[in-house]
């Protein structure tokens, strides 16, 4: 069985992946890299669900005559839904990225924050002249 590979460490490997994605998400400034980090983070959570649903020696949950033990179908259903939610978010995030690139000329979060601040300061000056 392939299962030896997972054994005890299974959950922890998944957690490692999750944190790798989470790190990419919060540590980097590039918007696309953030979205990719988000995807890795999410898919690691999906793996956690699916591992929970696994029954050793079970088979995929499609009823057949000669099979006694099935893995749990419920996590599979939940994760199907969650994957779809994930891709929907990704599509929206990428569309926003495109608009941000067009409006700001960059997709680096630091630069964008700086530009927003500058705009704010400019307005403040205008107000000060009153």
């Amino acid at each position, binding site marked *: 069985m392939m299962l030896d590979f997972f054994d005890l460490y299974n959950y922890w490997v998944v957690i*490692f992946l999750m944190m790798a994605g*989470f790190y990419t998400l919060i540590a980097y400034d590039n918007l696309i890299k953030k979205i990719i980090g988000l995807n890795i983070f999410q*898919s690691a959570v*999906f793996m956690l669900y699916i591992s929970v649903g696994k029954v050793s020696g079970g088979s995929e*949950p*499609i009823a057949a005559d000669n099979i006694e033990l099935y893995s749990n179908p419920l996590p*599979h259903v939940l994760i199907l839904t969650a994957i779809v939610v994930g891709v929907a978010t990704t599509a929206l995030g990428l569309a926003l990225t*495109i608009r941000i690139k067009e409006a700001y000329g960059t997709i*680096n979060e630091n630069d964008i924050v700086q530009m927003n601040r500058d705009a704010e300061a400019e307005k403040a000056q205008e107000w000060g002249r009153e």
Partner: protein
Amino acid sequence: MLAATAIAVIRQHSLFAIVMLFGIYSLLSASIFVVLDAVDVAFTEAAVGAGISTMLMLGTLVITGHHERTPKHGPVLPLVVVMLTGAVLVWGTLDMPPFGAADNPVHQHVAPRYIEDSPQEVGIPNMVTSVLASYRAYDTMGEVIVVFAALVGVLALIGIREQKSPRPVSTTDDKPPRPVLQVMAKLLIPYIMIFALYVQFHGEYGPGGGFQAGVIFASAIILYVLTFGLDDAYALVAPSVLRPLAALGVLLYGGTGVVTMLMGGTFLNYSVLADDPVQGQLYGIIAIEFGVGLTVATVMMLIFYAFISRGEKAA
């Protein structure tokens, strides 16, 4: 291997390479899902992660450029946050039931009914489809709405150029013709579409269903766009045709629910659709799976159109 890919994604600075690695990462995780018996999930992850998401990311890179500057601020705070979160999770796993044991609470309470009774109650062998389309059909409707909401967002943000481009057929001048590719695509696309239909209607028996079928169907069109260009694809399926279809898919799903209400059941209780409850379940599942497939396929195509037409405008 997954971990290695994930780390490579973090270390890389070329966004193009990152996106490619991400595609590989998705395929790898799909294979892990297979090992864990989640064939439906694996199918979807491969189609979505390695297919649609990667494609959309590439489409975005075309517009935004693909080099990442090195970050200026130190990685200390994020590292602390991540470590903390990870620590809480590891702490949480300490009392988790052992991996794979059949007597875990997850396998005791709700799941046995799905496994033991669904082939009789719902009448189809694929338990994932039974749970998805009947026991938890309302979640699945939510999922379709989420896809629909993404479409609304993408349309509001980047829109779609509805007409063909103003200068007709001149595109062939600046693009080299790709005869081999085009012939290959022409050969492949019908088969992909037939496969999509198979996945759509075979979801009750094997892995598959409306969502996967929709994605596959959309990818056939995407292949067409990539080889023949957007204008030819518009001639095949115009966005003005797809838009209403996306809403109709949602309404088909919801409408099925409304019909079951009118026939005296609760929302999405298919058993009232026919004299024999199991037969009713089958009717209901076919109807909503078709709604799912319709919305997913049209939304994916529209979103892809939107990204490509935006890219052409930018170029």
